[in-house]
């Protein structure tokens, strides 16, 4: 498959102007986007905000040519366009960087950039791949974006942040006039975000129009020129970043949504820990980690991406092998146990990538909610929908899971609701310890509050939990105590009431107090 370059005419004159006129997208009776009308001015960074299910992704899909509008017109540079395939979008000069990375890890950076359109040259009458030319051009592109990445190394050798940047370089190699960035920072730590923003600044200076989707409010004010808000498929408004405030944007996004506040911290009974981890090590991931976790305590683990937080939790849960140290659960030695053993002992784990490993997408919400507790729900191995009903209903009610019919595939739920299903799956077992790995990733502000409320409520009932989040302000808010990890080691233990964001960031970045 070859990708057409944008027509040269599009490169001159008004570049990157994008107009929506009464664009509507329906899925059956569901209106995902309703008469959306707005003009995105060329050469600016336009943030697109809205909670999950507001219609942001639909807008992205329409622009990327993944789906077609039911009615209405999209025009690019003043010319009406009708995209029937991603190919058409490319031809119009619109390139999308999707939330999920689409690089092939085993292939080199250069090959990834030119995947599907490798340059060829003739040799002995045959057309063969021009590797030298490919890496020369890839090198030029990378240098052009101010990046010091060797185009010959495999993508798997790069950090997630660098991969994200390569993804953008790949998009830019199509020479688009409009670039769509769908939550590019969701997996990045702050240093990597800075690198990404530098790249975005560079592209803006060249006059590329960017539509930037994010959940992180602070980023908007740092990078965007305007912010457009959609709610329930409707265009709510568009404001210049210079003339607005975070609370004004939140107001636009939610109408009048109630904000939960943190319940007061309680004094914990630290007599007997429920989980004792001693000198735990896993080569190449973390080393010599020790801590105690007490009933009712929420222990936050802070650290940059790659500090070993997820790896530590997976190893304790028995999902990965350990090389040394011990795990004691409720006074019993559980070193080297399997996830099955840990589950039986009373430990639950909600993994960071819920879509890939937290849920079975092809199964229903009900099936997923019961998946970890088939044993207790069934009688002598026999199970029926009737036996499952109370467990399904209770979690849906307690966790405020918004799902029409619990028998429908869980894939039809929004990110926040899917996360609640993962949590509900474990609460059905009434665990004594829970590991929450990035429970707020990719969910909207409201769902995030609800998830935190669930965690606090469970803690009040005696559940001990480990809480990991890339967003340090969340760790500060949610946790009773925070361990800071740096390069696979625990470097500090802090009290969230006696520290602030700046200090915590410093610890995570440097591994020691400055």
């Amino acid at each position: 498959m070859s990708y057409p370059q944008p027509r040269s005419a599009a490169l001159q004159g008004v570049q990157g102007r994008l107009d929506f006129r009464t664009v509507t997208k329906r899925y059956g009776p569901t209106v995902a986007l309703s008469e959306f009308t707005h003009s995105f001015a060329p050469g600016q960074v336009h943030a697109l905000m809205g909670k999950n299910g507001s219609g942001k992704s639909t807008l992205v899909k329409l622009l990327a040519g993944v789906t077609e509008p039911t009615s209405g017109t999209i025009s690019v540079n003043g010319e009406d366009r009708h995209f029937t395939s991603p190919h058409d979008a490319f031809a119009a000069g619109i390139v999308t960087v999707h939330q999920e990375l689409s690089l092939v890890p085993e292939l080199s950076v250069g090959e990834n950039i030119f995947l599907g359109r490798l340059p060829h040259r003739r040799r002995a009458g045959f057309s063969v791949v021009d590797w030298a030319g490919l890496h020369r051009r890839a090198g030029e592109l990378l240098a052009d974006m101010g990046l010091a990445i060797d185009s010959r190394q495999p993508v798997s050798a790069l950090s997630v942040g660098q991969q994200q940047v390569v993804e953008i370089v790949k998009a830019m190699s199509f020479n688009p006039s409009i670039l769509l960035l769908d939550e590019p920072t969701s997996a990045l730590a702050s240093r990597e975000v800075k690198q990404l923003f530098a790249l975005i600044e560079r592209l803006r200076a060249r006059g590329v129009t960017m539509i930037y989707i994010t959940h992180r409010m602070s980023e908007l004010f740092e990078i965007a020129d305007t912010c457009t808000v959609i709610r329930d498929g409707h265009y709510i408004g568009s404001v210049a970043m210079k003339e607005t405030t975070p609370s004004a944007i939140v107001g636009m996004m939610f109408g009048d949504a109630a904000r939960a506040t943190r319940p007061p911290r309680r004094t914990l009974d630290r007599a007997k820990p429920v989980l004792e981890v001693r000198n735990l090590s896993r080569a190449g991931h973390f080393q010599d980690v020790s801590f105690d976790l007490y009933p009712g305590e929420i222990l936050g683990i802070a650290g940059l991406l790659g500090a070993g937080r997820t790896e530590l939790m997976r190893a304790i849960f028995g999902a990965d092998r350990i090389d040394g140290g011990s795990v004691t659960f409720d006074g019993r030695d559980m070193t080297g146990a399997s996830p099955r053993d840990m589950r039986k002992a009373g430990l639950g784990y909600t993994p960071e990538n819920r879509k890939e490993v937290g849920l079975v997408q092809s199964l229903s919400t009900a099936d997923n909610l019961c998946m970890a507790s088939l044993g207790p729900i069934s009688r002598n191995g026999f199970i029926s929908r009737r036996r499952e009903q109370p467990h399904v209903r209770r979690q849906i009610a307690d966790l405020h899971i918004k799902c029409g019919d619990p028998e429908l595939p869980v894939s039809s739920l929004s990110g926040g609701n899917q996360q609640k299903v993962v949590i509900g799956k474990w609460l059905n077992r009434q665990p004594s310890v829970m590991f929450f790995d990035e429970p707020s990733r990719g969910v909207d502000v409201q769902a995030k509050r609800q998830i935190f409320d669930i965690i606090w409520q469970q803690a009040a009932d005696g559940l001990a939990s480990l809480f990991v989040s890339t967003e340090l302000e969340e760790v500060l808010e949610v946790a009773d105590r925070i361990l800071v990890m740096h390069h696979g080691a625990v470097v500090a233990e802090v009290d969230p009431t006696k520290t602030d964001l700046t200090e915590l960031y410093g610890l995570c970045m440097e591994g020691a107090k400055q």
Partner: protein
Amino acid sequence: MTLVSQTTEAGGQNTPLKFLKTYPMEIILAALVIFLILVAPGFASTGNVLNVLRTVSMLGIIAFGMTAVIISGEIDLSVGAGAALAGCIVAWFADRFAGVFGDWGAVTVGFGVALLLGFTLGYLTGRFRQWFNVPTFITTLALFAALRGVANLITGGFPMSSFPLGFDFLGGGYLFGIPFPVYIFALTFAGMHFLMKYTSFGREVYAVGGNMEAARLSGIDIWKVKALTLGLTGALTAVSGTLIASQIGAGTGTTATGMELDVIAAVIIGGTSLFGGKGRIWGTLIGVLFLGCISNGMTLMNVSEYWQYVVRGGIILGAVLLNQVLERVR
């Protein structure tokens, strides 16, 4: 994703269309049966119907097990050879050990050995995947070749037919006017349907096939689940193999050649996804009936055997295409 909206929208005016989308294979099977009744001479006669049911039973008993295997995300290519081997084991025991255990005793012990062997080989195939990371496709391909070899080694390459009097009843006899294998077939259907739908084991099979890592992190013993589905299929293969040996009156290494293809075809025609996680025992029932009717119909209409193969190939491809298309419009 749009399932809710589709159903509500289709609720009023498009009910026939919705019916068509929900039961595509059932409708096609019904159409085929009507077509054959009209066109194929003698298709609807009692004798022929019972004959079709008998043939379908041998296939179906294994296909129900195979459905579970495929839902769990694995495959078993060795069932044809396994069925032949099982028949040979029973025949060999009847031949050698009639003096020790008595006529029927020897057959029973032989059947027990075949059952245990079938289960064990299937179970170990699953564990091989766990221990040595050998795909079941490879292990069962190896068994596909080896088991047929072993069957011929046992029998010395000739049919062994020293079965006790009345043994032919199992595969060829009638009970209340219905071929005996049909009862086993019905029992297997009911049992597997129940297993997949009303036991935690069945639910775990779907979870493991739908997302192995998510199932593992939910504390499900994924390898045990896979090994057990394969073991179960091995055991059902032994049952079917014994019935076949009884029907033809001999254990021979050359029976059930190509059966694995028909079994897998029936499962796929029934709408089970080869990617795992999706499928129903009911669908497989439709699949085996469909295959049985079409080959019987073609034979009645004097279609050459070579054309029958071509048609069968076309049907497998057509069924998968149909499922893909339906997946999209749903």
